[in-house]
């Protein structure tokens, strides 16, 4: 690119003008990173701080965070911008990173592909990040908690609301079992009473005897209750 400019300017104007343009261009090349530094700084109005917790997420398998990983981040962000704006013009150079710390944390800003001095507003960057958050997380083997974009809160998963709450199902099972138990008990005591009655009448015992035996509450006595030996005088007399 430099050679085209050089030959072009040389062709367009005389050698002197050409040299001037060449010097200006060189200055721009040197000045561009300085300009980029002005765009990206701590607490930049259109920038976001990113915080990565590798050791928390991966423990022993944590990879080292180096310049290649930073480049990967730039590529991922460029991908996110492309995906959101549906423009194929975003490139790695449009993502400017700065203020790196050993935490690992850094700030980034996104420049427009058409004009490298113009920054993409914060809201648009946020939308792009939200849209591709899952892909960005997975690219780095991290999660919403360990790859934080400070200021962009992850949307929480919608709660799963089943049609019948699970507790009601368990409740239904238990109460059904208990009711069955009660009905079974009542029926069995009824059958027992009917069987005993049938057995008694077949033996030809009269009903008076049964009353003497004190059939109370459906429970038959084994022997005859002799009221003659009721100890009434153990109770204190009035």
């Amino acid at each position, binding site marked *: 690119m430099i050679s085209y400019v050089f030959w072009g300017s040389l062709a367009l104007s005389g050698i002197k003008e050409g040299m001037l343009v060449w010097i200006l261009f060189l200055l721009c090349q040197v000045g561009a990173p300085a300009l980029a530094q002005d765009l990206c700084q701590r607490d930049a109005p259109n920038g976001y701080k990113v915080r990565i917790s590798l050791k928390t997420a991966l423990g022993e398998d944590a990879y080292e965070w180096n310049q290649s990983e930073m480049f990967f981040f730039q590529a991922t962000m460029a991908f996110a911008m492309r995906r959101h704006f549906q423009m194929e013009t975003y490139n790695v150079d449009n993502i400017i990173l700065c203020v790196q710390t050993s935490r690992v944390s850094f700030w980034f800003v996104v420049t427009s592909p058409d004009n490298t001095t113009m920054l993409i507003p914060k809201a648009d960057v946020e939308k792009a990040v939200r849209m591709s958050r899952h892909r960005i997380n997975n690219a780095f083997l991290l999660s919403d908690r360990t790859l934080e974009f400070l200021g962009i809160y992850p949307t929480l998963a919608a709660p799963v609301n089943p049609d019948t709450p699970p507790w009601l199902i368990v409740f239904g099972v238990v109460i059904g079992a*208990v009711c069955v138990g009660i009905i079974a008990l009542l029926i069995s005591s009824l059958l027992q009473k009917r069987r005993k009655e049938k057995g008694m009448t077949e033996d030809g015992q009269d009903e008076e005897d049964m009353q003497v035996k004190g059939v109370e*509450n459906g429970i038959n006595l084994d022997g005859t*209750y002799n009221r003659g030996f009721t100890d009434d005088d153990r109770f204190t007399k009035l």
Partner: protein
Amino acid sequence: LIENKWDNPMQFVLACVSYAVGLGNVWRFPYLCQMHGGGGFLIPYMLMLVLLGVPLFYMELAIGQKMRLGSIGAWRAISPYLGGVGMASVVTSMYLCLYYNVINAWSFWYLFHSFQSILPWAECPVNSNLTGPVEECERATPTQYFFYRETLDISGSIEENGGIHMGQALCLLLAWIIVYLFIIKGVKSTGKVVYFTATFPYLVLIIYLIRGVTLHGSINGVKYMFTPKMEQLAKPTTWINAATQIFFSLGLGFGSLIAFASYNQYNNNFEKQAIIVSMVNSGTSIFASIVTFSIYGFKATFNYESCLERVRLLLLNTFDLAEDTISLENVNHWIAELNRTHPEQFASLGGRLETCDLEAELDTAVEGTGLAFIVYSEAIKNMPVSQLWSVLYFIMLLLLGMGSMLGNVIAVITPLSDLKFISVLSYLVGLVCLFCLLLGLGFTTRSGNYWFTMFNDYGATFSLLFIVLIEVITVCYIYGIKRFEKDVEDMLGHRLNCYWKIMLAGVSPILLIALFIFYIVNYIQGGTPTYQAWNKELGKSVVTEYPPYAQAFIGLLLASSVCCIPLTALYTYCKKRNLASGKRERTVSTVSA
């Protein structure tokens, strides 16, 4: 009911154990132990057991086994003027029946909610715009939110009533149906049920003990509990709390023991059984408190380490240090270091920097429903395979609660069936259960938990002391200790030895009078009775005074059971006088004619 009897003495013992070993052993004794100096509390506890608990337990069993009637009939037989003691017992038991089953309803609710992949009290639910957790849950903890909002849907104060919580009402219905199932055939069915309700909780406690002591940090809790602080023994409240705990833990004065013993064979050796049941009850309390404290220790350590983790992250993020520079061990060292090197930046942290203190976490002593449903479920959610532990724990709570409930309902049913209102037992039981269910629905309303607390604090405490005091005085001085001795000799075959005589006639009444006076003084000195109202804005409980009508209701609760005694005495006296004067008139007229 003479015909209805326990199949064998073992059933009787298990029924008594199942009744006495209840929720109080799990949630009140550990709290008292912690408040009153750990291991040192065992001294007043054991002393009160020997001086107060065992003799009174023995006396109630003797009465029941001798008279073979429920509390109303038994006391009427002992002394016609003091038949009201039995009536007062039944009234108190009825109050207990009304509110106690609500605890079982809560246990069912938690049990059914344990069958989910994530326990519902483990995390805060998200709010409607999916931006974060529900506000009330953020200010409180997820376990508190689940208990106060989702389980109870509690209102702000006792005055704000609301509708019935359908889930609670269903669980209460289930609880009463199960009680009905267990008592449908009187002690014939209860006798079989108590084999399970008395023994299974011990199995769960042993499993929990093993799980508890293997948890990380549990040793902190156990150490904290057992370090005796002997200076606590000098305070009178320690001794009074020990006496009250023994008293209520054994379930004296409700008439349940009399009812249980009335189904015994006449010559059953209740002396040995009284000692066994009392010892088992106290032993279970101590055992349960070891389990509780190991769980406490785990929870406190977990919270402490979470706090340290949060502080560590805060420091790392604020000062942008590499992740492995600060570890959990040197957090405090780094705080001092960073304060020294970057004072302005450190100052900017301000209130966000928490102080993490393990002692403070252990010191948060909680009792009652707070311990069982909030603290324990918080500990359980942090255990691995928490659903299993949750299910086990709430089944244990259910069995303990059901076992005590059986005693309460039998205490009401036995005297009623003696009076022979309704001859068929299952109908009587059904009627009582239905009645209690309908009234108990009041505790499932939005302000229901406040009424529950009122019943729990006032329904049975004062009246029981009075009832048992009158009981002891009646048996020893009005009926006569000599007559009582003869009855016991008749049943057991040997005389009362001097331990029982001294305790029953001397020591126990004195201790009871002292307790009684202390309660009255405490009540008067305490000022207006207050309760803990849940404030949803703050996310915590606030101490609130009872409104006047609630205070009147408290007075009614206390008076209604206590006044049975003087009223019945008066009624009997009037009846006797009418009878005597009536006889005299008839004799005069015959002679003159």
